[in-house]
């Protein structure tokens, strides 16, 4: 068969819809993004490297990526527990908790930022108990981790939940009847099944956290070299009219976010493929049932 650009269809409007989609995408997203790389190309490689690898920039990468990794790990651990509890158990207030999980998506980051800062400030609801223990939560790196944990909270829960719902109870029964104890079933049957989805959620939470700005700036204290995240460094450079510096660091962030996007897509394809295979085995049964009716 000859390769075709588009499969034949009797539905109208393909040209109009695709044309508008591509035009709007190019004007709003692709052209502005490529303008950043154009602007960055006015820097020589030495200049670019000098800015991107300066001590202050490297300190900010360490904090942004390190705190994001810690926050995403916290979310991976607790997200698995929350998803499990919400799918498998019944307890009072379950529906309420389930709908509230999406709060970090819906609550503006600035609101989350001032709320968390007030809670963890030395005289705040939680801060006042941590301060006597010598733990400084607000205006420290721990504060950054707290804010990023909040922003990334829904991702693992929401990617793992549907997979757990679709899991066949029969697999666990089979494991149990083959002599596995509950812990072995969880480790060898359930965890491998939810792992692709959990990792997708983990990398989404991580990618989101690296770029996060609003919820962090209030609680971090913003001290250069210590609690300054990379997005804040970009803003600081902009406020000093250092456009070249801001652009160079933005390019570093953009390239790293493209890498994340690629990773997440690959992970999703992996977990999607696993799901399809799991469902594929059921397909003949459905076809059989339909033929019988």
């Amino acid at each position, binding site marked *: 068969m000859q390769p075709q650009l588009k499969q034949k269809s009797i*539905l109208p409007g393909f040209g109009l819809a695709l044309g508008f989609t591509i035009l709007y995408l190019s004007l709003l997203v692709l052209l502005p993004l490529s303008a*950043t790389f154009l602007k960055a190309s006015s820097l020589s490689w030495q200049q670019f490297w000098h800015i991107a690898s300066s001590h202050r920039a490297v300190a900010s990468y360490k904090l942004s990526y390190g705190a994001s990794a810690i926050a995403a790990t916290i979310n991976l651990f607790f997200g698995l527990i929350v998803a*499990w509890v919400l799918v498998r158990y019944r307890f009072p207030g379950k529906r309420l908790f389930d709908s509230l*999980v999406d709060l970090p998506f*819906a*609550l503006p980051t600035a609101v989350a930022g001032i*709320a968390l800062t007030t809670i963890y400030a030395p005289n705040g609801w939680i801060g006042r108990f941590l301060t006597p223990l010598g733990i400084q939560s607000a205006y420290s790196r721990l504060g950054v981790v707290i804010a990023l944990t909040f922003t990334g909270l829904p991702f693992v829960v929401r990617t793992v939940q549907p997979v757990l719902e679709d899991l066949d109870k029969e697999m666990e029964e089979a494991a149990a009847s083959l002599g596995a104890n509950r812990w072995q079933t969880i480790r060898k049957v359930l965890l491998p099944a939810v792992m692709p989805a959990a990792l997708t959620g983990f990398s989404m939470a991580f990618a989101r956290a690296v770029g996060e*700005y609003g919820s962090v700036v209030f609680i971090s204290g913003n001290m250069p070299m210590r609690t300054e995240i990379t*997005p804040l460094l970009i803003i600081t450079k902009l406020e000093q009219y250092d456009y070249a510096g801001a652009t160079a660091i933005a390019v570093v962030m953009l390239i790293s976010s493209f890498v994340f996007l690629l990773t997440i897509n690959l992970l999703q394809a992996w977990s999607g493929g696993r799901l399809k295979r799991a469902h594929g085995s059921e397909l003949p049964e459905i076809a059989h049932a339909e033929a019988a009716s």
Partner: protein
Amino acid sequence: MASISLPNLGVPVAARAVQATTERPWVRWSLIAVAVIFLGLFLFLPLAIVFSSALEKGFSVYLAALHEPDAMAAIRLTLIAAGISVPLNMIFGIAAAWAIGKFDFIGKSLLITLIDLPFSVSPVVSGLIYVLIFGLQGLLGPWLAAHDVKIIFAVPGIVLATMFVTFPFVARELIPLVEAQGTEEEEAALTLGASGWQTFWRVTLSNIKWGLLYGVILCNARAMGEFGAVSVVSGHIRGRTNTMPLHIEILYNEYQFAPAFAVASLLALLALATLLAKTVVEWKARQQSTELERLREKLYEH
């Protein structure tokens, strides 16, 4: 090989099956406790502190903070930014869903990835890219200055940054939905003599209306709450280029905590309304799909 131990031999078979595939009560309840404490700490507490701090100085201070001219201007600007960006991104989302969901063409998955791009770009960088184009030092800066057009540190820049950040929301929601619905119903409508537009309005749109509504609600919540991107392009001119989140930041940094939380409580209410709408829309969508299922079953019976 490990030897198999059967400690619960002698327990009735049905009970043994339950034991084998559930956790012991103490495990169950500790897991529930861990989940509830984690969610309470990170979700309930922030919400509670927003409302309690907003009302700390009394209801009159709360109302005064919202009626103050700068706060009113911020609310107005937020409504303008969302009022422009949400409809435009909705039209884009529908067009993208039609092209991607109903047709097969080369480069489809690349296009989907490109649509997702704004999600993976830091909000600060999203604002910066417009400064680099339209700002005084930007690519078009000198030309804009010569023609006295102001985009950065003015309302158009805020609208552009909001549009960028909320760009994928509706499309993301609709594409999988339209794809899953297939093309059979539309083909039937066309064969029966409906025009393209009629088919779209009566068949496609009514099939995806709940998903569309949900996408629009999410898009709106983000549009009204965006902080980082808008902060870069706004210039923070009080009463002129401050949106609600930026107004909150200024009040908070001036130690006016009660007024800051008063404005924040409006956005928190918006967030709660968004979550409520999400729950309702999901319930409606599930209802619609079970109804369709029932209709199909009836068809098979005859």
